[in-house]
Every structure is written in structure tokens, then in C-alpha cells.
């Protein structure tokens, strides 16, 4: 059931962000596609704009004890706790396969301190075939780092700036929705020299097992993702687009082509497919195909025309 994207010369889905040329604007979100190879039996990676790795830390992490996930109405909670193989193993074990594919490769990174973020970024400078760094300043599931930084403009600025100073790759901070003013955080990224911004990570949520009278997740709270949060993600892309000049990569509850269209029209330059990969691993490829069809039917020659189309025209 590998979906093949119809060849169509006229329709240009390619986008360029910070000098990186993506074949199309559809990426798979961090933590929902492993390190890429896991889905290679099912999904033609050559047809996806970019694969974003699970968040990488300086040393491998084991994450939280079970239970780590729970399904909610039109969504799911996760508290994985950044269980990952560590940046070194990623470079030595996972990049080799990814380099053989046309898809662009984005490494998502995190640390408990800004120094750790910087160390991971430095290590990745030697990863051949990598194209961009996504900075996880937004995962709600760890005690130190991530959302701790992404909830404050000053720490966001510091963290992004420090990484920009050492990395040879363009940098894409990933924002948390659990803030009073996401525009303020996005502006801090812009000032710090970020090349683009992805939004959103998960919303903090929890569930209680009323039979056992205790929280379902071992970590108590987790991150909510899936269709349930799409309206929240879309509103944040919309608002940030109005004040921030950087290209935006929209993520949150995207299940199909029309969901993706909403994000482009709100102002996204590209989108990421997250939870939907679990539901249907073909989602990203189907969206690529769907976007081509949409553009064809609506005589749109470049996907770029769609960006911010629903926004009021500047006066």
C-alpha cells in the first residue's frame, strides 16, 4: 500500500527555507517517526519533504516508566520523557540510512541546560547529510530543559542564540503552546537569529484512572496531541504569522490534506505530520499527493501562493 505521488511537471511543491530546498513542504514530526528507518517498509521516504528525528540528547535517555501514553477523545497523551538513543548513536547508526534517501533530514535536539543543547548541536556539525536542527524548547515531559526554556522569552533567546553560534545548520526552534503569549516567544527566536520556527508541541494534559484513583501516566502529566489540538495549533500559527517574519512550520493535529491547507492558509510555509503517522503511516505521502491535486484543480502553480492566503490582506 505504498502510495505513489503522481508526477506532474507543472506543479511545484518545492519550498526553500534558509537555503535548504525541500522537495515538498510536508515533514514528519519529531517523536512520531522514530529515526526514519522504522517506516521504510511502508513509506517511500523519497516522497517526504523532511524526516525529523526523535529528540536527541547528549547521552542516551531511558525516559519515564510505563504507562507513557493514553488515548483521549480525538487525541492522545504522551509522557515518553525523551527516551532516545543519544546524539552519537544517531550520527553513527541512523544517518547512514537517511543519507540514501532524497528526503531532507532534520535533527531535533534538547538538553537539560543550554550547554547541553550546544554540545548536541556541535556534535551534529559532523553529521554528514543533515540539513537542519529543530530545537525542542517545548516538550512538557521533562523536569529540566525543553519547555522550561520555551516558556520564557529570555531563556528562549539565550538558548537559540547559543545554538546559532555553534551550528553550521539552519536552526528551527519548536514552540510550546503552553504560554500566555506565543508571539513574544516567537519574536525572541527571531531576534536570536532563528531561521524558521515550528509550532506547536503538545499541550500539557493529564488523565486519571478513576478505578485505581491515580494518574494514568507515571509522569502524572503528559502532552496532548492529535486532532483535538488542531484548532489551538492553527490559531497560534495565525497569530505568529501576523507579527513574525520567519517561515513557520505548522504542526498539531494534521490528519489530511484539508487540515494541511488550513495551516498553509493561516501562514505556514511547511507542515509536520505527527500523531497521524501512528494512525496511518501513509498520511504524509497522501498529503503530498493531495496538495498536488489541490494545486492542479485550483490552477495554483506553486504551493507558496497558499501561504497566509486566509490572512487579511495587508493595508
Amino acid at each position, binding site marked *: *500500500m505504498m502510495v505513489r505521488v503522481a508526477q506532474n511537471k507543472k506543479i511545484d511543491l518545492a519550498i526553500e527555507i534558509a537555503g535548504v530546498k525541500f522537495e515538498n513542504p510536508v515533514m514528519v514530526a519529531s517523536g512520531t517517526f522514530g529515526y526514519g528507518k522504522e517506516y521504510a517498509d511502508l513509506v517511500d521516504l523519497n516522497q517526504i519533504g523532511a524526516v525529523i528525528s526523535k529528540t536527541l540528547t547528549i547521552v542516551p535517555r531511558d525516559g519515564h516508566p510505563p504507562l507513557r501514553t493514553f488515548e483521549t477523545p480525538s487525541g492522545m497523551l504522551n509522557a515518553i520523557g525523551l527516551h532516545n538513543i543519544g546524539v552519537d548513536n544517531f550520527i553513527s547508526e541512523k544517518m547512514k540510512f537517511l543519507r540514501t534517501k532524497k528526503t531532507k533530514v532534520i535533527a531535533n535536539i534538547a538538553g537539560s541546560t543550554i550547554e547541553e543543547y550546544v554540545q548536541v548541536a556541535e556534535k551534529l556539525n559532523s553529521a554528514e547529510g543533515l540539513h537542519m536542527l529543530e530545537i525542542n524548547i517545548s516538550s512538557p515531559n521533562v523536569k529540566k530543559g525543553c519547555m522550561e526554556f520555551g516558556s520564557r522569552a529570555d531563556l528562549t533567546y539565550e538558548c537559540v542564540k547559543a545554538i546559532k553560534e555553534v551550528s553550521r545548520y539552519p536552526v528551527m526552534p519548536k514552540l510550546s503552546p503552553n504560554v500566555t503569549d506565543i508571539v513574544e516567544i516567537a519574536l525572541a527566536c527571531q531576534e536570536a537569529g532563528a531561521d524558521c520556527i515550528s509550532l506547536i508541541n503538545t499541550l500539557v494534559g493529564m488523565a486519571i484512572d478513576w478505578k485505581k484513583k491515580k494518574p494514568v501516566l507515571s509522569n502524572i502529566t503528559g502532552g496532548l496531541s492529535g486532532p483535538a489540538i488542531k484548532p489551538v495549533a492553527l490559531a497560534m500559527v495565525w497569530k505568529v504569522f501576523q507579527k513574525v517574519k520567519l517561515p513557520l512550520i505548522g504542526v498539531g493535529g494534521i490528519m489530511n490534506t484539508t487540515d494541511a491547507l488550513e495551516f498553509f492558509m493561516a501562514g505556514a510555509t511547511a507542515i509536520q505530520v505527527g500523531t497521524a503517522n501512528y494512525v496511518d*503511516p501513509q498520511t504524509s505521502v497522501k498529503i503530498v499527493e493531495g496538495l498536488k491535486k489541490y494545486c492542479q484543480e485550483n490552477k495554483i502553480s506553486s504551493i507558496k501562493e497558499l501561504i497566509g492566503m486566509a490572512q487579511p490582506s495587508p493595508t
Partner: protein
Amino acid sequence: MVYQTDSPVLENLRLGEDCYKLILKAPKIVDHSWAGNFVHIQVNPFFYPLLRRAFSINEVDRKKGSLEVVFKVIGTGTGHLSRKKKGDTVNLLGPLGKTFSYPDNEDISIMVAGGLGIVPVYFLTRDLLRKKHKGKTYFLYGAKEKDQLYCLSDVKKLPKSKVEILYSTDDGSYGFKGYLDALLKQVLEKEDKNKVKIYACGPEGLLAKLSGLAKEENLFCQLSLEVGMPCGMGTCMGCVVKYKKDYSSPVTFKRVCCEGPVFNAQEVILD
């Protein structure tokens, strides 16, 4: 190799109150399926429930290219599945997961099937029969009460000459009265523990007991575990179980979907 297929429903049989056997056509998956493998089913194309549901494979018909899953209705997902009719299709991912280590002819195999945990060990038993396996084989099938031995008619069809079948019910309404682990202990007393290979699946409590027993008595015992599985493909890291290779190793986490669902009972920590 993992496949994703839109599989036609060939039959949906009711096995008892709220228990169904769904027969699906999925030749590619069937070709590569062995005992312990499971399929991940999208029960509703409209994303409600959102996530796939995992079901061990109960049996395959390799000629027809069909496979069986047996399930109990416990929530929205299985509720949807129970209403599938011949001609409907469901989207499958499979075969997924690691299989049981099949026994050698010298081994004494003991299948321990608690409730619907029968599914993977029934497949194993059927597969051994197809392979003309020579080793002695026990099949222990237990449930709370007789009505919940949903697969009784399938089990009864196993050749008695090749498989020694023992039943248990908590209330004694069929076979041995008591828990399955007690029945297992009776069997173990008769056999050489060094030759025994136990294959088990069932409710959490049973598996925890078996894990304890295997550790105490240093038994070869494989358990098929069930936990919520968002992806089934090893990518979400959501389905982990506590794992400790041996006494001196640290506790780590293993993904049940791809490093399991079959684990050595001595290596997992079920609490």
C-alpha cells in the same frame, strides 16, 4: 517486512457474549506471520477512536491468505470491530512484533492460555501441528467460568493424540477448579523442568505470577504482553515494559510492540 493493507472482512463470527472472531483477507501479511505476531487495526477510518488497536493473530489460512483475530468488546474500538460485516474492509498493519521461540522436538511445550490470551498460543499450537512437531505438548486453557472459554470449540478440535488439553475455571464450572498457575504447577511436577518450555498469554495478574515463577524456578517461559500501542512500529516509545536482562543488569525499558510482545518471563518486571 511489514505490510499495510486494506483487508476485506471475510467473516465476523460471534463466539459468545461480546466475543467475536474476525476473519480477514490479507495474503501478504499471512505469508510472513508466525505465532506471537500481531496486527494493528484501524477500526474506524474517521479517526474515532483515533489510534489503531492491536490484536494477536489467532490462526492463519496460508492458502486462502486469510487470518483470524479473536476479540472481546471492551470499548469503542472493539465495539466498532464487532459491527464489521462481510464485505467491509479494515486497514491493517502487520505482521508486527517478535514471535515465540518455537520449541525443538526434544522440548516439552506447555501452552498457558488465560482467557483471550489463548490467541497467540493457539496459533503456536496450530503451527506446531502443521510443522509436524514431535515434542510433547500441553495446552492449558483457563477462564473465570465456562462461558468465558470462548474458543472452546477450537480447542476441542486440537488432536488429543498430539496435544494434552487441560482446562481450568476459577469457579470450577469446567475442568480444574482454580487458577491457571496452580494447574500449571501440577503439570510441572510431572515433567523435567529443564526440558519444559512454557508459552503464555493472559491477564496481567497471571503473567506477573508466571514471571515470578520463572525467576524462582529458572524456567524457560515466554510471555506475550499487552499494553496500549499508539504506533505498533517502534517509533512512539509509548509501549514500554520494565526490563532487566539479569540480576546484574540495570532496569531499562523495552518496547513491547517491536522488542516484544513476546518476552522471556525472567527478563521482564511486571508489577
